[in-house]
């Protein structure tokens, strides 16, 4: 079904990639850091888009994986020395995969609104685990004092303390995730996922064991979200229970919807738009005393998008017009 995309899209993407690649050489530190944060969010948003936009599973608890990976780094990293990227990144992503498997077996027994609620609930459960129990550092959080390092032999290949290097690492990973998901979505597996979103009942009647596909999608999605969470923890140098909170889950869902679901570059655009909007609204130089209450403007903006722009900023192509399944007896 995925028709050959017009060559304009790859050209545009390549152009943006090039612009981003040279940015650290000319840009200010503040903007380098901001764009790094945005690109990490883009990875997070793409991971959720796989689940929401392509598999049709609306999760309101995606922050669980994001936060879990960050906490794994924070717990495993030596107190004042650099952690090894080789070991901690796979560990963090692996933890997310396992958590996705265990919770997926439970949450995927539900659908529609129930699914939304239980995914939110499981993220909240993890919040309490890190907030109340000794595993997390309580509400104070845990610091990650040194950026992870990528050592071969005795030499550090990536000096992540250098903001430019960190930027390029994140840029590379964002591009890699994009290309990876592009391929996956064009495969048999990806087509089945899109079939699930469009008409799961029929796909099952054709002989597809859709539960397994949904679980695989959930696990892949959670693992990639973990990548984003790891990078965020490394960049920010700090984790606390709030990163598992529903504002994180809600925010990334907004990014996916803003970007128009069912197009990966849409998720990237949505992430850029959402964070830049957030930065703009909270900018005191521009909005003075109103900047403190930027969430009000953000909230109104979101409500307006919900009511007026059903297709998000990008406009969903006619190909992905399927809806999230609704419960029987409601409409």
């Amino acid at each position, binding site marked *: *079904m995925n*028709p050959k995309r017009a060559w304009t899209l790859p050209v545009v993407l390549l152009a943006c990639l090039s612009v981003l690649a040279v940015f650290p050489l000319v840009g200010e530190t503040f903007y380098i850091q901001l764009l790094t944060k945005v690109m990490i969010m883009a990875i997070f948003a793409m991971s959720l888009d796989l689940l929401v936009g392509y598999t049709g599973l609306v999760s309101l608890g995606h922050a669980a994986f994001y936060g879990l990976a960050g906490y794994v780094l924070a717990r495993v990293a030596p107190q004042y020395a650099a952690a090894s990227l080789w070991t901690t990144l796979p560990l963090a992503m692996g933890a997310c995969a396992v958590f996705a498997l265990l919770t997926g077996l439970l949450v995927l027994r539900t659908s529609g609104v129930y699914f939304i609620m239980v995914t939110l609930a499981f993220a909240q459960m993890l919040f309490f685990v890190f907030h109340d129990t000794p595993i997390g550092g309580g509400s104070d959080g845990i610091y990650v004092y040194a950026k992870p390092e990528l050592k071969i032999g005795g030499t550090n290949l990536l000096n992540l303390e250098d903001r430019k290097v960190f930027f390029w690492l994140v840029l590379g990973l964002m591009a890699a995730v994009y290309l990876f998901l592009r*391929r*996956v979505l*064009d*495969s*048999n*597996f*990806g*087509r*089945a996922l899109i*079939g699930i979103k*469009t*008409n799961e*009942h*029929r*796909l*099952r*009647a*054709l*002989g*597809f*064991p*859709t539960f397994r*596909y949904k679980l*695989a999608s959930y696990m892949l999605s959670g693992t990639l979200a973990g990548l984003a969470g790891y990078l965020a923890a490394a960049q920010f140098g700090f984790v606390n229970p709030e990163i598992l909170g529903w504002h994180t889950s809600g925010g990334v869902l907004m990014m996916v919807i803003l970007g128009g679901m069912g197009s990966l570059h849409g998720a990237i655009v949505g992430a850029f738009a959402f964070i830049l909007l957030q930065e703009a609204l909270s900018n005191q130089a521009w909005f003075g005393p109103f900047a403190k209450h930027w969430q009000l403007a953000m909230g109104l903006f979101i409500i307006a998008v919900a009511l007026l722009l059903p297709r998000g900023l990008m406009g969903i192509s*006619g*190909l*992905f*017009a*399927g809806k999230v399944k609704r419960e029987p007896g409601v409409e």
Partner: protein
Amino acid sequence: MSEAILRAERLTKRFGGLTAVSEVSLELHVGQVHAVIGPNGAGKSTLTNLISGDLPPTAGAIHFLDEAQLAHDLSGLKSDRIARLGIGRSYQKTNIFLPFSVFENCRLAAQSRQPRAWRIFRSADRYADVNAIAERSLQAAGLGARSAMTAAALSHGEQRQLEIAMCLATQPRVLLLDEPLAGMGSQESQRIIELIQQLTPAHAIMLIEHDMDAVFAVAHRLTVMVNGEVIETGTPAEIRASLKVQQAYLGDAHGGADG
């Protein structure tokens, strides 16, 4: 083949206080079309749902013989498992992937038999065997020329054809066709009737239809259901002659749909 490939035994479905299907038994043989007819609300679609696994039966069993002559009891199995055993069904209410192209609808159906889901880096379009099956099914259903169109843009009749093409693409041995001619004009209907006749030698077909001309043109056996129960089973001639059936159903409704 004297052995029935699928045998439903005293199938019953109750929804709370309502009995939709009551003690229905029937047999399907390869090379035969077994038509199930009856007025609206007789329970025909529910019966189909019971056999296809969309609904679990309240009582009764469904015996199925697969290619290796292994016996299965289908009652209680999920619909995807039943489909993989070789039982395909088409739906009364068109149930296709509207946003996809016609070809993709069939390709996806054909993919179900060769899922190869772990090959996440290979484009789905590059499996020649799956593409060939999809192409053949589309041709058989008469949609060869419509391959590239979006399914939502097809006419109603063409969408019904796609329903059947998708069913064929899963290469089933048993076909459960739920009102395939619903809403079709006479030319399109003729086409589907011919298709069913072509498919009959190699498949066991259960056909639910209101179009009596079509039914008598293709069916080898008929089962008549009224209010969830079987009131008569037999050859077309026997059914035509049956007073019971005439009283309950055929009467003045002969040749017309939905009485």
